[in-house]
């Protein structure tokens, strides 16, 4: 540095342009902080208010029945946990096979066809249909005839999951290299055979991960259950019979209750529900990242 008087100066000059760019970069960082704060606040509230309720006399909260009189203090979300699992499993059994098959049609059979283009587009639009509309729809076509049951809720959630499963599965099918399909055809395999034994297995980690995300999202839904599942405070392990309940419905019901005991149960149920959905999301991510590295 010393001695060469005419050395070219490449240090940044302080100018308004650079300051402005730095300010904008800071604002982008601030936006990131702005989404971390509510997430952290919600999670903190969940642990602060929910952990005590849920784990105080472990495992009572997860196994006991829901008090019939909501004013009464004490545990119990067991029936709601079973209900959530039942409703969500039913929905997954409906939406996952249909969604995967639908995606197979879009990508393996209908590529380039108008019908496939229409279905693809409408599936994307369907992801934006409000969940309460799905709930009322199921009420009109199912619950009015067959009454409250966990299955009604499954139908509603399946309607929400179907387009998500189709979208994520089609994306995964796109990643399966074409030479694999050609190799199978060249050995005399039929199209169905190629899809079932080569294409789907090759895409399976991604498909499973997408389905898990869809299930996690559906498990937290409330609106489709309000009109279809009914209300219950005792265990009901039957998919097609009698009213049932679910964690999300319990949270909704208890959130506006004026009794501290009910509010406590809402927080405990919320913590349970969030743990369930986070575990599913985490599993989905792990599965997919392992596939990428393999």
């Amino acid at each position, binding site marked *: 540095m010393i001695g060469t008087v005419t050395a070219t100066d490449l240090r940044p000059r302080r100018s308004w342009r650079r300051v402005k760019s730095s300010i904008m970069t800071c604002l982008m960082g601030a936006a990131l902080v702005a989404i971390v704060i509510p997430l952290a606040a919600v999670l903190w509230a969940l642990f602060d208010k929910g952990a005590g309720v849920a784990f105080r006399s472990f495992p009572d909260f997860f196994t006991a029945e829901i008090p019939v009189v909501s004013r009464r203090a004490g545990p119990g979300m067991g029936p709601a946990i079973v209900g959530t699992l039942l409703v969500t499993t039913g929905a997954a059994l409906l939406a996952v096979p249909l969604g995967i098959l639908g995606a197979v049609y879009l990508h393996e059979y209908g590529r380039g066809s108008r019908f496939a283009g229409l279905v693809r587009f409408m599936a994307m639009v369907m992801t934006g249909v409000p969940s309460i509309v799905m709930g009322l729809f199921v009420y009109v076509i199912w619950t009015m005839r067959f009454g409250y049951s966990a299955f009604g809720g499954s139908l509603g959630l399946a309607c929400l999951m179907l387009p998500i499963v189709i979208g994520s599965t089609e994306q995964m099918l796109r990643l399966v290299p074409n030479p*694999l399909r*050609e190799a199978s*055809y*060249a050995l005399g*395999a039929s199209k169905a055979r190629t899809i079932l034994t080569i294409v789907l297995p*090759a895409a399976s980690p991604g498909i499973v991960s997408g389905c898990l995300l869809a299930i996690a999202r559906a498990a937290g839904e409330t609106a489709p259950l309000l009109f279809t599942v009914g209300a219950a405070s005792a265990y009901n392990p039957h998919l097609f019979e009698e009213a049932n309940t679910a964690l999300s419905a319990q949270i909704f019901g208890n959130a506006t209750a004026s009794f501290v005991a009910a509010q406590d149960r809402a927080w405990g149920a919320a913590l349970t529900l969030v743990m369930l959905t986070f575990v599913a999301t985490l599993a989905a991510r792990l599965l997919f990242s392992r596939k990428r590295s393999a």
Partner: protein
Amino acid sequence: MTHVETFSEVLAPVVFDLSSLEVFYGSFRAVRDVTLQIRAHEITAFIGPSGCGKTTVLRCLNRMNDLIAGARVGGRVTYHGVDLYGTQVSAPEVRRRIGMVFQKPNPFPKSIYDNIAFGPRINGIRDRVKLDEIVEKSLRAAALWDEVKDRLRSSALGMSGGQQQRLCIARTIAIEPEVVLMDEPCSALDPIASARIEELMRELKNRYTIVIVTHNMQQAARVSDRTAFFTAELDSQSDQRTGVLVETGTTAKLFSNPREERTENYITGRFG
């Protein structure tokens, strides 16, 4: 039919008979006027510059072009006298008899064993002992058995490129085809791996009819009995390049004494 064979050796039976074959992709004509015969237990090589349609013609022989949307075939291709594009013909059945090895090795993301057993399984062979037998026989025929016999259950994706390509050959002959089509099978391999594949081709020729597409003229000269030279011509009407067959003949004759000037220019390296 401008290029009629004139010499009078005893010729092997005709397997494929192509007359005035043309292939369209949508409105684009990829090749036209291909008339040639492919004979049993010979290695026929398709050579020519890129874009001359040699791969397209090869893919007509086992109806792989069916898989490309908008592909259409004109003219006539017969296999042992049966029209390959006849209405009664099923493409999977054709492909079961006419195997194919691709440019890049494309093993399934399964174990070595399952790769080989895939073809026999779709043909209904479920018997464990029988499958074991086929796997061993196919791997031996592809000169791969000694290298992999201890890790048949490990993933095929862990093999080297040359091994993967030999696995693909083993996978093809596991279904006992009559013909093996090879689409530039060595282009993704190093010279040593290529040499092994060439050696393998010479061994397989006793049992199979082989058609190979290659852009490597030395390779065609080394392994093939008969060569077909393709080139691309500018179509004056559509201003597109369409592949045409220039000449066919025994490899020895085509390389030493070509009839057409275009062939001579290509094999001496003045063009292409």
